[in-house]
């Protein structure tokens, strides 16, 4: 059902693509008045469709494995029995563990926290900020007088993985309800295209222009669908980690001081990046190199 939906979307995009032309001399989209998230999303998707015409839009949830066959083969072998299965189990136990006050995570989330990954990150009007799933998890703990968990790995990643697992095949649907949310989106968009660090590279350098182009021994994945499979069990980490752990790692990779995990910048970046993947399905957790 969802697949068919995204197939149709793909088709309609193909037409958009033929009309839109990829240029680097944008004149709009950098002010609150001119930024148009939906146009950004379609432009990005058409950009990738032009570069990789054979790749179905819905396959981008598999990241680089949608583009590079040899990597895909190894990845599929590992997904035969993925290392994160233990984490999903532990995540489920942690998720169902009652807090000292008798409440549990289920009390903090819509639908008892099951099958809701696709709605995160979400704009929270009351807080006036973007709330990622991990932030919501820790807010839930603190609301119930429990200590907040570390942001990057361990328990929070396992709980997030379980919640993503219960949401697999749900279609990402990040909403931008008002101008405040749009401002956060714009901030995230700017971060994504902003060069940092001694190597003077932006997220986009590797994950838009550089997607599937060797950087030393690595093939960066396309940003389209990049968030859908997080948290990931990364062979390099030998364990599960959150999206924002990876953000910090990328910024270090370009020899820049990483920004604050779950700070405004990273949450807004995740807001933008996830909006770009609206219409694709949740397939997290995933295994990556």
């Amino acid at each position, binding site marked *: 059902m969802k697949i068919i939906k995204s197939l149709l979307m793909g088709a309609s995009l193909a037409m958009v693509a033929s009309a839109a032309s990829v240029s680097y001399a944008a004149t709009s989209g950098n002010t609150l008045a001119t930024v148009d998230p939906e146009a950004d999303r379609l432009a990005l998707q058409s950009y990738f469709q032009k570069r990789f015409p054979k790749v179905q839009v819905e396959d981008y949830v598999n990241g680089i494995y949608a583009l590079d066959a040899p990597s895909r083969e190894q990845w599929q072998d590992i997904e035969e029995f993925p290392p994160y299965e233990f984490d999903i189990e532990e995540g489920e136990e942690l998720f169902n563990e009652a807090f000292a006050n008798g409440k549990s995570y289920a009390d903090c989330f819509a639908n008892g926290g099951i099958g809701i990954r696709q709605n995160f990150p979400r704009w929270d009007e009351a807080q006036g900020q973007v709330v990622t799933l991990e932030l919501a998890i820790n807010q839930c703990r603190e609301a119930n007088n429990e200590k907040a968990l570390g942001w990057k790995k361990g328990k929070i990643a396992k709980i997030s993985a379980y919640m993503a697992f219960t949401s697999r095949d749900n279609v990402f649907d990040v909403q931008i309800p008002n101008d405040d949310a749009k401002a956060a989106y714009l901030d995230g968009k700017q971060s994504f295209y902003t060069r940092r660090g001694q190597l003077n590279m932006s997220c986009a350098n590797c994950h838009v222009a550089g997607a599937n182009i060797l950087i*030393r021994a690595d093939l960066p994945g396309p940003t389209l669908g990049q968030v859908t499979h997080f948290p990931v069990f990364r062979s390099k980490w030998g364990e599960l980690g959150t999206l924002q752990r990876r953000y910090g790692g990328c910024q270090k990779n370009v020899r820049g001081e990483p920004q604050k995990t779950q700070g405004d910048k990273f949450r807004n970046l995740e807001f933008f990046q996830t909006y770009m993947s609206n219409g694709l399905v949740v397939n997290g957790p995933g295994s990556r190199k």
Partner: protein
Amino acid sequence: MMNRRSVLKAVFTGGLVAGFGVLMPRVALAAWSKAAFEASSQEMAMGALYDADPSASAEVTLKAPDIAENGAVVPISVKSGLAGVTSIAIFVENNPQPLAAQFTIPEGTLANVSCRIRMGKTSSITAVVTTATGSFSASKEVKVTIGGCGG
């Protein structure tokens, strides 16, 4: 994770297994061969397992990537069309201990196994299949690269 009972059991069989390691004659593949698994060169490891050097055979199929995505987890599968396969072993020549795994294949189990290995650096991988008539091998080089941001 382990409950008390299996711990007790652990202590008990622990001694036993260690004992076997030493006493087991080299032809009997069933037990974990200390000499083979702790050998620091492929020659020594093979010497500890086989009477004669394995001969290359097209009947042994080794599936491994050309370039490993990450040396820490390299998917490998070995299968063989040979009759009466009793054992399959996998060697990573350039690892500190080259013998990765050795599978005993009882009758009724297909000569077709998959596992995931660790590679310290680019190395030749060799799969050795043993039958009543001898040992046969297939090799392939797997490149391990140092990533720009990944592996």
